[in-house]
């Protein structure tokens, strides 16, 4: 026996024992990170087992260390939470499904964070939810070894299956009703008839549309023919003449406007001015004098007619 063999065997045995002990502890203690215990109580039948993850807001912070059956109808669960994580006050624990096959984990639902300061730089304001989750108090955490209150549990696979079962029952009832309505009460035939009637109606509509389309086509063709028959040169001349007439009318209108304005000024002068015409129109004295003059003229004329020689004395030679 060589001394070297003893050393090699010693090293081998030591390594094997260290690997065995360290590996077992690593698996059993869920790693070598320091942890502290927390407790929770759940109803029976939650399928909790050692090693299942404990998640705070979806982040794994520990694992289930021990599950004890409490005869009072509960499962007393000990969780090992990694030292680096603290659980805020107001947190509740529920058992949630992981995947479809009965895997479970413990979900810790933390309190709601306080509303961020309005206008704070880089903070997006969040509309507060309608749930009853309490708002976090700053720096308030559950002490190590405390019991986390239990929240409303997520529906289990059995409950989901029960719901699916009831839904499928209702679905089968609907299918049965449809079968009665459509098959037994000749609903399918009615539908067939309705479809046939609709098809016939559509055919009629199609025919009408075809006729209308034909008439429209003919009308358009007639319009096209009429349009083609028009002499474009004559039309141009007419349009030019109309345009010239329009221009003349515009010039005449402008001239009339100017004349009208002049007349307006003349009338204004007649009405308000000091001229002869104005005084003739506006002064009653002038009017009276004119009447008097006219009367005198009448008498003069009569006198002239009566006694022409009094006024005209024609002498020839």
């Amino acid at each position, binding site marked *: *026996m060589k001394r070297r*063999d003893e050393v090699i*065997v010693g090293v081998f045995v030591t390594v*094997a*024992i260290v690997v065995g002990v360290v590996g077992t502890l690593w698996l059993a203690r869920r790693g070598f990170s320091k942890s502290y215990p927390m407790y929770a109580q759940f109803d029976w039948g939650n399928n909790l087992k050692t090693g299942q*993850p404990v998640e705070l807001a979806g982040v794994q912070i520990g694992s289930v260390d021990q599950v004890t059956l409490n005869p009072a109808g509960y499962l007393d669960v000990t969780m090992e939470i990694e030292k680096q994580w603290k659980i805020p006050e107001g947190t509740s624990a529920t058992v949630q499904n992981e995947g*479809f*096959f009965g895997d479970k984990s413990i979900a810790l639902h933390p309190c709601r964070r306080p509303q961020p300061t309005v206008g704070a730089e880089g903070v997006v304001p969040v509309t507060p939810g309608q749930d009853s989750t309490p708002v976090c108090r700053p720096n308030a955490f559950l002490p190590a070894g405390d019991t986390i209150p239990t929240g409303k549990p997520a529906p289990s696979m059995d409950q989901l299956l029960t719901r699916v079962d009831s839904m499928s029952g209702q679905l089968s009832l609907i299918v049965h009703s449809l079968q009665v309505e459509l098959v037994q009460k000749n609903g399918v035939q009615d539908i067939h008839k309705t479809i046939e009637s609709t098809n016939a109606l559509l055919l009629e509509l199609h025919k009408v549309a075809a006729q209308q389309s034909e008439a429209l086509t003919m009308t358009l063709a007639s319009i096209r023919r009429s349009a083609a028959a028009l002499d474009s040169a004559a039309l141009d001349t007419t349009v030019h003449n109309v345009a010239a007439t329009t221009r003349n009318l515009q010039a005449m209108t402008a001239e009339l406007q100017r004349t009208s304005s002049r007349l307006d000024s003349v009338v204004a002068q007649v009405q308000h001015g000091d001229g002869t015409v104005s005084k003739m129109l506006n002064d009653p004295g002038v009017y009276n004098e004119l009447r008097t003059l006219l009367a005198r003229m009448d008498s003069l004329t009569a006198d002239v007619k009566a006694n022409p020689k009094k006024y005209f004395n024609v002498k020839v030679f």
Partner: protein
Amino acid sequence: MSASVYPRHGGHRPTDSFPIPQRAAIKFFRTVAQVTIGIFLEIGWRVHFLREIMRAMSEPRTWLPLTIKQMKNIGVDSLPLAGIVAAFIGAVTAYQTVYQLFPGVQLSAVGWIVRQSVVLELGPLLTALVLAGRVGARMTAEIGTMRVTEQIDALETLAYDPIAYLVMPRTIAGLTMVPMLTILSIAIGIVFGGLTVIVATKVRMTDYTTGLRLTFIPFQVYYALIKATLFGTSIALICSYEGYVTETGAEGVGRSTARAVVISSVVILLLDALTALYLAPALAP
């Protein structure tokens, strides 16, 4: 102790010498008697061998110095083979498991399945079967050759107890080193399984380690160690015994070696089933 202590055949009056009407019945009863006696004889020889080992335990000055060498032969020298086997088992188990998962199953199931497979079954069992081939065959051949070359008789002549000198060191080495090898095999299998799926598939380190820790209880490791201890002891005892009772000639050594490997393999499987039968209920988390 010599081979004559364990005679395999007794002398009987030939069946042909009896009257013809009696021959069939006599032949049948003689066959039944021979088989029954043979079974009990084999058991008796092994019990006697065990008793000799118990007796030899009282002579540590003879076997203790030789144990270290056997521990090196059985444990240290077998590590490369056991490690390669464990690495491939862990890697292949993990890789295959990934592709057996259908949608909805968590990827951590890979770590859990690899741990359960390697720790509870594949680690101890395949390490033991590999050792039955590598170490057990060597043990039987060594002791068998010493038997056929009458070295064992020479030891007896020199007042050495051949059981204490040859069998005890191997038994102690098997008893202690196979569990050590099993621990290392399990560790290698789990590590290589993890490396394989992390490198080659979408499984992440977190998934794998989460699965490894899921529903783990230390008794699972104790269970593997209990198995490994039983397997190691069986390999050492069976292979030493088969070598010790080797009949003359090189052919006898070969026959004993093959017989030792076959018996120890079957016994390992039987013990595996028995331990599962009795201890598996205690593995529930």
